[in-house]
């Protein structure tokens, strides 16, 4: 078995240590200005990556992150980053509560559908009509994959950011808050299912593609199995694990292994591992037997170790200045705001919600946060999008997350 030698290991540990400590410092400083943690982590990545350190001190950059000169280091870091994204999707899934979506009834369904269909349609339509706006040549723009991807990217929401905003505005427990949360869960569920389809169908390795229908059937069959059967099995096993095995070791081992097995299974049938992790997260998170403390431990473990590594690593891959394009950023931002606010707003109006509250719901669901960045990174890694589009998506995710709270506040003064 090929192993990391002493030099590789030292480089890897130094890189991880640097990424963790700097991202924590910047995130803590950023909190003073109400900056999302993910923004701090991205800024550290940009500072440590080719954008700043690589440009001004290329030797130091190559010593700290020998991505090109040391293939062992590169593979090891890639493994950790892949594990990070799998675990991030797992914890995102843990917060999706399907019964809650159903309980909110018509309002959650129309808002959830509106906030997906209209952004998807606008994204798909523009990408189909003007592929050159996104740096695609006429031939590249002929397929359906990029338009479907852009539509999906614009229709996703970020539940953790939204939950934080609602809490800050004291709207979490209100009817509007519950509709926003339920719709965001609906967006996440459908969005990641569609995105898994895109990734499995449009991966780099053409030989491994399944047909469209095989892919769709495989995704739906796996989702249905995990949500109907797997969920019930986990619900039966969890109480035994939590009472008979050591705490919290037993429950952590169960959750992590279910996540890994599920991710491995979806990857093995050529659907991306993230779908397995996300669905496993839903199945475990939905269990009434999962203690709140166990849920918190899993979240702490993932968001404070794996999340910074993932988000810092984004900055290491791409030169944000070189690939920044005003036109692409503006188009994606306009599409994101118009599609989401109009879609969610119309959906809410159809459910009989008043105009001001519908606007608040629209701006609330507009926050894309970390989920959009994860989606963009996976798409970039799969060769679906250019660096320019990727940079534009990251900027859109940050701007929508930062603006969501203040814009919501304008329409919610009487609701809290």
């Amino acid at each position, binding site marked *: 078995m090929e192993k990391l030698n002493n030099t590789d290991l030292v480089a890897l540990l130094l890189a991880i240590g640097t990424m963790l400590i700097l991202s924590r410092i910047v995130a803590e400083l950023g909190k003073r200005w109400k900056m999302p943690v993910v923004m701090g982590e991205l800024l550290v990545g940009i500072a440590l990556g080719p954008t700043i350190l690589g440009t001004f001190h290329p030797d130091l950059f190559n010593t700290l992150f020998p991505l090109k000169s040391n293939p062992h280091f590169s593979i090891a870091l890639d493994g950790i980053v892949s594990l990070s994204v799998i675990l991030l999707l797992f914890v995102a899934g843990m917060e999706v509560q399907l019964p809650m979506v159903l309980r909110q009834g018509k309002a959650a369904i129309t808002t959830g559908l509106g906030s997906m269909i209209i952004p998807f349609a606008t994204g798909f339509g523009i990408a189909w009509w003007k592929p050159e706006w996104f740096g695609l040549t006429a031939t590249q723009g002929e397929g359906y994959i990029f338009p479907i991807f852009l539509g999906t990217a614009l229709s996703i929401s970020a539940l953790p*950011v*939204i939950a*934080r905003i609602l809490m800050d505005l004291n709207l979490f*427990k209100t009817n509007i808050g519950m509709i926003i949360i339920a719709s965001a869960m609906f967006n996440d569920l459908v969005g990641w299912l569609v995105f898994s389809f895109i990734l499995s169908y449009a991966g780099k390795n053409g030989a491994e593609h399944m047909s469209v229908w095989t892919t769709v059937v495989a995704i739906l069959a796996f989702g249905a199995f995990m*949500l109907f059967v797997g969920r019930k099995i986990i619900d039966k096993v969890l109480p035994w694990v939590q009472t008979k095995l050591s705490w919290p070791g037993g429950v952590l081992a169960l959750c992590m292994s279910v996540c890994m097995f599920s991710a491995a299974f979806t990857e093995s049938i050529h659907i991306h591992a993230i779908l397995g992790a996300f669905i496993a997260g839903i199945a475990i998170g939905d269990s*009434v037997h999962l203690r709140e403390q166990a849920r918190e431990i899993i979240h702490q473990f993932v968001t404070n170790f794996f999340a910074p590594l993932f988000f810092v690593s984004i900055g290491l891959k791409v030169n944000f200045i070189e690939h920044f394009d005003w036109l692409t950023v503006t188009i994606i931002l306009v599409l994101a705001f118009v599609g989401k606010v109009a879609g969610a707003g119309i959906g809410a109006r159809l459910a009989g919600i008043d105009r001001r509250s519908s606007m608040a719901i629209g701006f609330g669901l507009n926050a894309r946060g970390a989920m959009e960045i994860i989606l963009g990174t996976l798409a970039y890694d799969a060769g679906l999008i250019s660096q320019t589009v990727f940079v534009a998506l990251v900027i859109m995710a940050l701007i929508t997350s930062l603006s969501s709270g203040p814009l919501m506040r304008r329409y919610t003064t009487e609701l809290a």
Partner: protein
Amino acid sequence: MDYSKLKRRASYPFETIAVAVAFSPRLEAIVTEGALLAKACNAKLLLIHIGERTRNKESKLDDLVTKLQLKEDQYRILWNDGDPVDSLLHLCKLNVVDLLILGAMKKESLLQYYLGSVARKISRKAKCSVLLLTDPSKEGTTYKKMVVNGVENPKTVHTINTAVYFGKCVHTTDVFVVTEIHQPGLAMTMADEATAGEMTRIKKENKAEELERVHAIVTRCQRQGAMEICEKTISGKPGYAIRQYAEQKKANLLVVNSPDQKLGIIDRIFTHDMEYILEDLPCNVLIVHSRVNESV
């Protein structure tokens, strides 16, 4: 059909109490429970049987009524054919029943739970309050300890009022009004951004806010008798958490709001709050149906 008497009818007092009669081994116990409650609430008693009317069944009921010393003007026996659930619900509407009493298994087999027994189906669809008795007794059940839901819902105030009214009728001593705190999405947000102190503060604030809200409802309630009303917050999924709490407290009765919408099979698969209670009844359960904001 004229259902105008039902429109906006308050969930209490119970003027008409119906008992679903199934001629099972628990027949005497369930009819006795109904008779005792009708007496305690000063209500008319309806004994409803859906199924074939036979001499044997008639004589069984007559013997029982005689044994319970019910006078003719205190009760009526109704016989009807057809689907047990639909016919029973139809008769309840027609006779303006305020409370329907049913015997129910504490827990049903997985298959039966998904297919739905008569008692569970009625609990999901009834347009009147329903009392599910898990262990009806010929001596009558005591309702000393009562757990009542305090969830944020316009129906809750009516449910608490009904529970207090019912508690007075059956001499309840302890009432626990319980609200469940469940905030999905928060764990991920807190893990990312909050310090330990901030996390504790947020949890404390949430708890205090909920208690204040429940206290406001309880203050508005019409307290009756010498019962002690205690307000509590618990963490966990709505429905499941209160079921666990009722079990831990060894409550005699759990009082909850009726579901906001008709519950179907999908609500059993992706468990609705009410379904957590129906899948494993922690004790006797009173589902209060308030008709305040609905058309019948």
